[in-house]
């Protein structure tokens, strides 16, 4: 099957893949290293991981006396007050040594998870509510526009679509003035309501196109069976629309997850920070002094979308593709 000509193409593509992934490889690596390690050698693998392997080897070969670690910084003292070189190196039982190394290895993740967890919960809440709202409102309106003719239906649809052309840069400041006047600042609603309002436009467009493509016979036979409008929508249309619903939902989750500026200016109360604004604020805070904490935070904040990507690759692809055209 494989053609010989493929090999140089693979080579070129792998160079692109490597360069694309390079910063992220550094992030993964450095999320497992301490500041001191990074200071001593920027290009290096996590020391605690190496020690874990080494100590396990010593244990297997029965050299328990070689399992030695520097005594930890005494309680109640800041790391800056103590010179690491002043702390004595001593023999430690294997189990305790591994526990301490594991502790070093995962410190960044534990610290950043502590900060990120409430942001993650907020983001998840806003993402799911927004996606749910957009799917519900968008599918109903898309259905009405697709299957019914009434005075003004065309004009109303064009009106909705034309709103898609309003760029965010124009409305950022007045939208802020509006939500401030509505008293929505520092709440979940200040995110959810504008996101649903904006997100539904493209959703209506997609849903309308999809519903128009459904065969008319389907509706006729259902009507003959005495199905009402709601029954038609609920029992016939929605079950057929799982794919498009997934696309719309994922597209909106992506947009909501990535939106930084709006939550940053409207929700200054840390209680309502989302991941993107939280990451930025984390970067300006004390926590950022510990590099591994920030690197771990970048990775942790990517995991939910990564899982979504793995779980729903195809709708994810279509969602991404649709999202690109929303502008």
């Amino acid at each position: 099957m494989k053609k010989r000509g493929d090999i140089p193409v693979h080579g070129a593509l792998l160079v692109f893949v490597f360069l694309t992934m390079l910063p992220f490889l550094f992030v993964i690596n450095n999320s497992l290293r301490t500041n001191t390690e990074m200071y001593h050698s920027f290009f290096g693998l996590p020391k605690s991981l190496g020690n874990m392997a080494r100590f396990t080897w010593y244990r297997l070969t029965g050299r328990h006396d070689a399992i030695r670690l520097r005594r930890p910084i005494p309680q109640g003292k800041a790391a800056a007050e103590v010179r690491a070189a002043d702390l004595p190196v001593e023999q430690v039982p294997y189990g305790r040594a591994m526990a301490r190394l594991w502790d070093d290895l995962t410190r960044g993740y534990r610290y950043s998870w502590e900060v990120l967890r409430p942001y993650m919960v907020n983001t998840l809440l806003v993402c799911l509510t927004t996606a749910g709202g957009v799917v519900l409102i968008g599918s109903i309106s898309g259905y009405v526009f697709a299957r019914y003719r009434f005075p003004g239906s065309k004009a109303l649809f064009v009106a909705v679509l034309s709103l898609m052309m309003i760029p965010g840069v124009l409305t950022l400041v007045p939208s802020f003035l509006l939500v401030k006047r509505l008293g929505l600042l520092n709440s979940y609603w200040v995110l959810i309501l504008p996101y649903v309002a904006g997100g539904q436009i493209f959703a209506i467009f997609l849903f309308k196109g999809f519903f128009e493509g459904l065969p008319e016979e389907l509706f006729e036979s259902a009507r003959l069976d005495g199905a009402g409008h709601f029954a038609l929508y609920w029992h016939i249309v929605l079950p057929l629309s799982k794919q498009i619903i997934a696309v719309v939902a994922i597209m909106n989750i992506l947009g909501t997850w990535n939106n930084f500026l709006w939550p940053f200016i409207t929700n200054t109360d840390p209680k309502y920070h989302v991941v993107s604004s939280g990451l930025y604020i984390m970067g300006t805070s004390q926590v950022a002094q510990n590099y591994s904490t920030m690197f771990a935070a970048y990775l942790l904040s990517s995991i939910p979308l990564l899982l979504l990507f793995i779980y729903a690759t195809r709708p994810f692809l279509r969602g991404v593709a649709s999202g690109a055209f929303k502008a």
Partner: protein
Amino acid sequence: MGPSERRHISQNLGCYGLLAPTFLLLAVFSVVPFVWAFTTSFYRYEIGGEAAWVGLTNYVEYPQDPTFAISFRNLLFLTAFSVLVHVVFPLAVARLIFALSSERARYAYRIVFLVPIVVPGVAVLMIWRGLVYGDNGIVNELLRLAGLTEVARGWLSDPDTVLWAVACIGFPFASGINILIYYAGLTAIPESVHEAAQLDGASGLGKFFRIDLPLVLSQVKLLVILTIIGAVQGFQGMFILTRGQPGFESMVPGLWMYFNAFSFQRMGYACAIGVILFLIILVLTVLNLKYFKSAEDVTAAAT
């Protein structure tokens, strides 16, 4: 496929009722800000203060603003650079993927190049700011490793390098959706075209420029316009990376709008800058609309 005809107003009421949530939300969160953007731009207005009508003063002031020339110079440079690299690199990668004989390998590469999209945009920018361009970042450490210590610098804080450093963020510009769009365009080229070219002895670059490129031109046009519209609007990146510094060296119009609104409380002036950017985008959007149908097809084909 004919939609149900409904002639009686009473039965239409249901339709209007179902559309009510859509239009209520749009009226409040789209139409009001849209109108306010224009009206506010004619006032001098601080939150909590009195709004004073100033007519076109804000619009007259902006071209005389010390940041105006440099902002638009930067915008032009970054847009041009962004268009160039986001057209060329993804097209090259898409063409490479398309050249593979194994269907599974082609799918795998398309997925792999899309994976970085799961990293939040803010995180990507912060990674580039700190890990790549930082004092102890990848670029500087590599230079030091190569013995070029004197070349190492704060790439984003040096006025000579800041714009290029910002422009190069995302190198090699091969992740994301553009590859999928080009790939879809390439697969739409009939096999017979390639075979005919083969018979004529066309190969390599010549074949690419004479056959592939003209046939994906609609994708190129679409992505050029989308990239330009994105670039004109985009200032979030600059906010995270440099905040327009050093001096105003990396200022862009959108960022100046942001600072006027949220740092200097000059809401009217900020809105005027927003309106100016809107007018630029409007022209581009009208061009974009010409390609809107194709955009939809491309979306479906990209998967």
